[in-house]
């Protein structure tokens, strides 16, 4: 046996390593290993001691998430503090997914086991198992809600998957925009401590529906909300949807109305679920309020009047200004749209309907029409200022037709002839022949420079600068240079005649004409309109028109004559349009848009001896070449606005202080 052992030892001598207690070559490796360990320890120490901040930052970036919540928008009020646009609560039932982690895991385990027991060889992937589990758990909670609300809503798997991928930290909305009764049922039906909760957000609230729709504008969804001075800008951020002004005042004053976003920073688990409580939290703050110059009573009067007198879905607008301050009291535009159908978002049907009715445009600022005979006020001023006519001078004998410059010029107003009229009656009866002649007299060299210059003095050739988007730039005061440039043609006396009665290429907006008549009322040349109300708004003072008292008296007599015995008198004599105790002046106009429809105009201000309110109304006819007169269709609308204004002046509404000051 011993022999065998020896043999084995001999044979294994080459295989079994024998060690000496001291091996110099191993010592070398000790140094190597020690050196490597030293490097490792040094590196570790360096990372721990000198790179602390970088690792802390990495850890922060990896483990913290930021959630931003938009602040509610500010409210919009009318000049008496009545809310025009506010916020209404919008309730939704949401599921806090971060409280369901263990349920998801257990559900996935059960589903996996069921598959295994069923012997199904076509097993889903791990991700698919998780997705099935999530849908199953969420549906279970949704069924609780369904049971309370008697609904049968199903979970949208794709939507849930997107939410998990992109917005895991935000609650998952199961049912949005609950009715008050549904909200009440859930409040009583859901346990207080449940992942299911009723969640409140805000959406725009329009107490007056379609009133003032174009001016107020609407909001759209904004995903890029920011929270200034809120830490964690470099963190992965989840943002709740906010709003952004898309039109009207909502757009122009978006920065002011926008609330301050709030937010919170959470630590998250490796799976991405948030860990309460938050590390940082800041509540959102409502945006600043806006007090407009609009009087909602007058506004609704104007809108109702347009619908009643012109007809449903007729195109037209009415603007009323405070003569002294230029504050816009009314800006009605028809057809309009119901703003309540824009919350939470307009449907395709709503948009299609608005487009079909051509209701997007704010006609008060975006439609440029020939002003028709309302322009005769400007022609009168220009002619008197340059001495071409005198108030007591009958410059022409109107026989209904005038042959001059080798062509016939027709007086379109009045069935008979006006005869030898003076300026007041020419304005009151809107005698075209008189104003053809006045126009020619202002243009010694047959060019319209004096008329055009006068129109420019009243700023009729440019935008008013009102605080609204989409004000058209198509307003136009033509002259010889313009015609030569655009059409390559000379300016003819016929062009001057057309311009003198507000036809031809002259284009103005209803807002411009409201500013014009407000300026005339103040005996000045320019009124800057504004939609913002200030209690201490200054009286506007601009360049005086420059008429002598006699000339101004004749001008005002003509305007008053228009409503007492002239072109607007017949309609305004009806009892519903009478304004007891108020003398006012106006001018009708019926503009022809060549090849298209007529536009009925009326401009007015009141009272004539102490002007306070100026109104311009323009209504498009709906039938080409129809006789669509301003006296019949536009003047009554203005009269109803004036009537309501003076009723309110005697019985002003109490001012309601906005909930939050500006």
């Amino acid at each position, binding site marked *: 046996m011993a022999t065998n052992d020896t043999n084995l030892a001999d044979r294994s001598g080459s295989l079994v390593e024998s060690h000496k207690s001291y091996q110099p070559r191993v010592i070398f490796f000790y140094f190597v290993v020690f050196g490597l360990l030293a490097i490792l320890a040094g590196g570790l120490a360096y990372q721990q001691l000198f790179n602390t901040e970088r690792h802390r930052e990495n850890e922060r970036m990896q483990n913290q998430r930021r959630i931003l919540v938009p*602040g*509610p928008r500010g409210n919009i009020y009318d000049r008496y503090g009545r809310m025009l646009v506010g*916020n209404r*609560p919008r309730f939704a039932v949401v599921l806090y997914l971060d409280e369901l982690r263990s349920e998801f895991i257990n559900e996935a385990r059960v589903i996996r086991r069921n598959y295994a027991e069923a012997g199904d060889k076509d097993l889903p992937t791990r991700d698919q198992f998780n997705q099935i589990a999530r849908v199953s758990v969420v549906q279970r909670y949704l069924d609780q809600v369904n049971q309370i609300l008697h609904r049968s809503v199903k979970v949208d798997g794709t939507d849930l998957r997107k939410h998990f991928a992109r917005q895991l930290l935000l609650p998952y909305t199961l049912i949005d925009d609950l009715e*008050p*009764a549904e*909200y*009440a*049922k859930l*409040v*009583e*039906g*859901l*346990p*207080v*401590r449940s992942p299911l909760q*009723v969640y*409140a957000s*805000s959406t725009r609230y329009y107490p007056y529906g379609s009133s003032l729709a174009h001016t107020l504008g609407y909001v759209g969804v904004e995903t890029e909300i920011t929270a200034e001075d809120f830490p964690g800008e470099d963190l992965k951020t989840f943002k709740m949807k906010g709003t952004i002004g898309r039109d009207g005042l909502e757009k122009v004053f978006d920065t002011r109305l926008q*609330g301050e976003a*709030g937010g919170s920073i959470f630590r998250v688990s490796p799976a991405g679920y948030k860990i309460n409580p938050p590390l940082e939290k800041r*509540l*959102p*703050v*409502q945006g600043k309020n806006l007090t407009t110059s609009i009087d909602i009573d007058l506004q609704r009067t104007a809108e109702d009047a347009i619908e009643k007198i012109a007809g449903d879905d007729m195109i037209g607008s009415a603007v009323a200004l405070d003569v002294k301050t230029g504050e816009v009291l009314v800006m009605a535009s028809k057809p309009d749209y119901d703003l309540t159908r824009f919350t939470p978002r307009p449907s395709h049907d709503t948009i299609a309907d608005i487009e079909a009715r051509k209701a997007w445009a704010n006609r008060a600022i975006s439609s440029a029409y020939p002003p028709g005979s309302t322009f005769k006020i400007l022609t009168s001023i220009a002619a008197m200022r340059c001495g071409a006519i005198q108030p007591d001078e009958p410059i022409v004998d109107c026989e209904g037709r005038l042959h001059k410059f080798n062509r016939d010029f027709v007086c379109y107003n009045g069935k008979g002839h006006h005869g030898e009229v003076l300026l007041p009656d020419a304005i009151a009866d809107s005698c075209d022949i008189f104003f053809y002649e006045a126009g020619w007299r202002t243009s010694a060299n047959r060019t319209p420079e004096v008329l055009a210059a006068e129109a420019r003095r009243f700023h009729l050739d440019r935008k008013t600068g009102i605080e609204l988007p989409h004000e058209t730039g198509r307003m136009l005061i033509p002259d010889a240079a313009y015609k030569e440039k655009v059409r390559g043609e000379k300016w003819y006396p016929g062009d001057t005649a057309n311009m003198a009665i507000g036809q031809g290429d002259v284009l103005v907006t209803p807002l411009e004409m409201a500013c014009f008549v407000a300026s005339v009322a103040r005996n000045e040349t320019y009124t800057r309109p504004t939609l913002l109300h200030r209690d201490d708004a200054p009286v506007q003072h601009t360049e005086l028109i420059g008429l002598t008292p006699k000339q101004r008296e004749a001008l005002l007599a003509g305007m008053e004559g228009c409503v007492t015995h002239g072109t607007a008198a017949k309609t305004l004599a009806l009892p519903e349009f009478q304004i007891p105790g108020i003398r006012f002046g106006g001018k009708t106009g019926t503009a022809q848009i060549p090849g298209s429809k007529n536009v009925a105009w009326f401009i007015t201000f009141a009272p004539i001896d102490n002007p306070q309110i100026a109104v311009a109304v323009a209504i498009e006819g709906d039938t080409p070449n129809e006789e669509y007169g301003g006296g019949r269709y536009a003047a009554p609308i203005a009269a109803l606005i004036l009537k309501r204004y003076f009723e309110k002046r005697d019985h002003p509404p109490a001012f309601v202080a906005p*909930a*939050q000051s500006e």
Partner: protein
Amino acid sequence: MPKRFDQARPFLTLALVVLGWLLVPVAVKLFTRASFFELQAPLTVAASYARDLQDYWTLRLHSNSELIEAGRDLARLNASYEEAVQQNLSLQAEIARLEELLKLPAYAHYRSEHARVVRRDFSGWWQQLVIRKGRNFGIPVGAPVIFAGGVVGRVSEVYAYTAVVELISDPSVRLAAVVEGENQPISFQGGVNTSFDAPKGVIEFVPLNVYASPTMPKRLVTSGLGGVFPPGLNLGTIIKVEPSLDGLYKSGEVQLDPRLSALTEVTVLVPLNEQ
């Protein structure tokens, strides 16, 4: 070693019991809990009967004159209540007629089940009552409970002869309420109430146009929209509302009826369609 083991034995036993309890199936635990309560209930009920007997003997100590006087007072009260009952009947008939006339939806109908309070259990965590009626009187879980001052709470657990009522001062009770005269539902929830404090609750999602203060309080009543409580029942008095920072709503504080902590009789409204 044995001595040390002896010293550790109680802790080991406790640990074994706890471990054993943890391993027991949930169904067994629930059964045990229910059984415990059912076993305990007769004691509680017996104690309440003993209290009634005590009250009886206390009354026996009164003189005949006092009892006669009390009897007269009671008779007068009964007479006035009889009159009130008659008025209520005629008003109910009038309401039914108006509802029919206006085609208003009829509210859920209830059967009143009066029950004696046998135990009050108030703490910072819960606020409960145990009443002396349970399944034997057809009381269902979730039934609203009221008293002369308005809402008491709702039934949370029902046993054979007793039922547990969560008071509206309990933080786990939430219901839809309205400010008297308004129609927008708001959320009412019991507040954090300690044992001897005046009970209070909190309200959320209050419209911005609602104002209330201790000097100008507003009454809070049930909305009837939630489907559990009939409308118009008194919940308490709003004594404070403050706007939330986001400017959307207000939240506030509601003072509840102090008698909630001293109730001896309540009425359970058993929905008729539950039966």
